[in-house]
């Protein structure tokens, strides 16, 4: 494997590789009981109007509550699910493939690492099979056995499964979770993609192994200029490894921007709740504020307007009425721009707190506590 196959290694880091615009996904729900006779179609609104850009040589983190649609976004971007609406553009070209040749061409450029390394490796195949297939399909296996072997060894070395001979002929069940996760990463790399969609690639690992995998991802980003989507529950790791961080809540992106900014100065009430809830040994326990309770919303009948409003301590009259657009946030954490006009990489939040509102709209729905 050589690095020369990847496009101009020195290009601007801001080049957009993969772009999602207004991505929406609804899953139809099986009916039950009396509903069998009704005509109403119910669906899980798993992803609603998500706009997202992945840049060359940058890691974009996606954090958020579980079930908020992070994996679904990744699968949509990998074209594994048909989307309900919205557009996906690869280098500005709209893509819409259902399978066949065009899908394979797409999959060569956009690869996904699945959330669960225990499930995403076929138990009946060896590491060698998994990796050889990835190489062969995308023509990276070389022309003879020796070249193929070399490519395999390269891949394994790259994910630090060394010495490669020790792992190459193992079955998944003979590997530890961390090793599996690295095989899954190696498989994705075997296609020599431009975009890597990594869905919680380290969730199952203990901290020391986790660190190794994350360092690998950073290394890939830096050496091969991959665009990486990094989905995680571990916000601290997003801070460390991602250039940009987006926060999802109930199917929508509620905040985004530079990782350091988002994690240190969260603007959206949900992000604030999330950051506050994250365990942090450096923080005296007394400092932890009560982040509010309440269940995650149903995605079948989501709350109207801003989906966070039933749990939001700052909810205002406008919140249940209109879904908030993205508002740019200034460096001091105050409102800084008009809705929708958010520059690439700039900090934004989809929350009326930062919008231009009439006083009537600003009427609080409940007594503000704490903050």
């Amino acid at each position, binding site marked *: 494997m050589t690095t020369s196959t990847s496009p101009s290694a020195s290009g601007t880091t801001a080049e957009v590789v993969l772009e999602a615009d207004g991505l929406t996904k609804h*899953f139809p729900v*099986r009916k*039950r009981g009396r509903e*069998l*006779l009704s*005509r109403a179609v*119910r669906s899980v609104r798993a992803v609603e109007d998500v706009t997202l850009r992945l840049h060359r040589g940058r890691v974009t983190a996606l954090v958020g509550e579980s079930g908020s649609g992070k994996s679904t976004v990744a699968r949509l971007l990998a074209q594994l699910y048909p989307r309900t609406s919205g557009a996906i553009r690869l280098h500005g070209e709209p893509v819409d493939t259902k399978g066949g040749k065009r899908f394979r061409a797409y999959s060569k450029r956009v690869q996904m690492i699945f959330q669960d390394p225990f499930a995403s490796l076929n138990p009946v195949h060896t590491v060698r099979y998994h990796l050889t297939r990835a190489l062969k399909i995308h023509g990276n296996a070389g022309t003879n056995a020796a070249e193929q072997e070399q490519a395999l060894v390269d891949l394994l070395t790259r994910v630090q499964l060394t010495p490669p001979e020790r792992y190459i002929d193992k079955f998944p069940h003979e590997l530890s979770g961390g090793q599996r996760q690295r095989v899954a990463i190696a498989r994705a790399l075997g296609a020599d993609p431009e975009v890597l969609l990594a869905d919680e690639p380290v969730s199952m690992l203990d901290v020391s192994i986790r660190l190794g995998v994350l360092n690998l991802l950073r290394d890939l980003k830096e050496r091969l200029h991959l665009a990486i989507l990094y989905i995680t529950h571990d916000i601290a790791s997003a801070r460390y490894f991602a250039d940009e961080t987006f926060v999802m809540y109930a199917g929508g992106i509620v905040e985004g921007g530079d990782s350091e900014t988002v994690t240190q100065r969260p603007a959206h009430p949900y992000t604030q709740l999330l950051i506050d809830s994250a365990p942090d040994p450096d923080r005296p326990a007394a400092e932890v504020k009560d982040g509010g309770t309440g269940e995650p919303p149903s995605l*079948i009948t989501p709350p109207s307007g801003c989906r966070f409003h039933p749990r939001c301590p700052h909810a205002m009259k406008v919140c249940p009425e209109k879904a908030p657009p993205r508002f740019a946030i200034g460096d001091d954490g105050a409102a800084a721009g008009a809705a929708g006009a958010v520059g690439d990489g700039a900090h934004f939040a989809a929350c009326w707190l930062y919008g231009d509102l009439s006083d009537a709209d600003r009427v609080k729905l409940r007594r503000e506590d704490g903050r």
Partner: protein
Amino acid sequence: MSYLLKRIAFYLFTAWAAITINFFIPRVIPGDPVQALITRSRGQMTSEAVQSLYVLFGLDKDESLLEQYFTYLGQLLSGDLGLSFTYFPSPVSQVIGDGLPWTLGLVGITTVLGFVIGTALGTGIGWRRGSWADALIPITTFVSSIPYFWLGLIAIALLTGPDSFFPASGAYDNGLVPNPDPEFIGSVIRHGILPAFTILISSMAGWILSMRNMMVTVASEDYVTVAHAKGLTDRRVMLSYAARNALLPNVSGFALSLGFIVGGTLLVEIVFSYPGLGLQLFQAVGAKDYPLMQGIFLIITLSVLLANFLADVAYLALDPRTRREG
């Protein structure tokens, strides 16, 4: 189209397809009911006499197969199964009515019993995996592999006789007329014991094995460990936690086996001269009795479909997860 309608359409389609196949297959056989009648009884008949039989059975009309098919469908829709050839001119519905209760009674009850006993034994053996109870498994395997007609014949040879409590054939004593008096019922039970036992022995083994395997599988589920951790009694863990969950696949298997009651145990009826539907079907097939065959096939088809439906329902009732939304 809603889910329910889809389901119904699916059942209707299957029923129609099966009925159609059941209609055509017997008719592509060489020979016809009259020839079969003569051959079977080594009957003696002049050529003119043969013709009179064709007239009698209504087979002299030159109807194309397709016409016959539509006539048949039309009759079926109006609930008319036609007249049997073997028992001409008895209506097929009457012939089936004579046999069905016996089949349902003998095979139905034993199927249910076999399931219940087998499942109970399987539960116990599976729960005590590793104890002496496991030694039962090879025995059960062997017993379940014995063809039950063979078992029946051996039973007849060994256990029946002039002075035996067990009669060798029939469903009740000759001369008794079916009515709910104790003598008749006692006689029915006496006649049922041996055939029931052969079915029971060979059907039970299967349930024991599958239940045992499911028990072993389920016993290592986390929730069973939790149940132990909760300090519940062994009985409660076994029944309410392990067996309750292990039962699920068995139940759908059971529902499907209900569908095979009619078609499945033909040989028991043959061996024990039990006047059930299986025996009738066997005779109908030999006699090319299309109407009777179709009638019995219809019963079988419907009962299998019904059983399928029951399996669906049972699953829905027993496994709350299938009632899940999204």
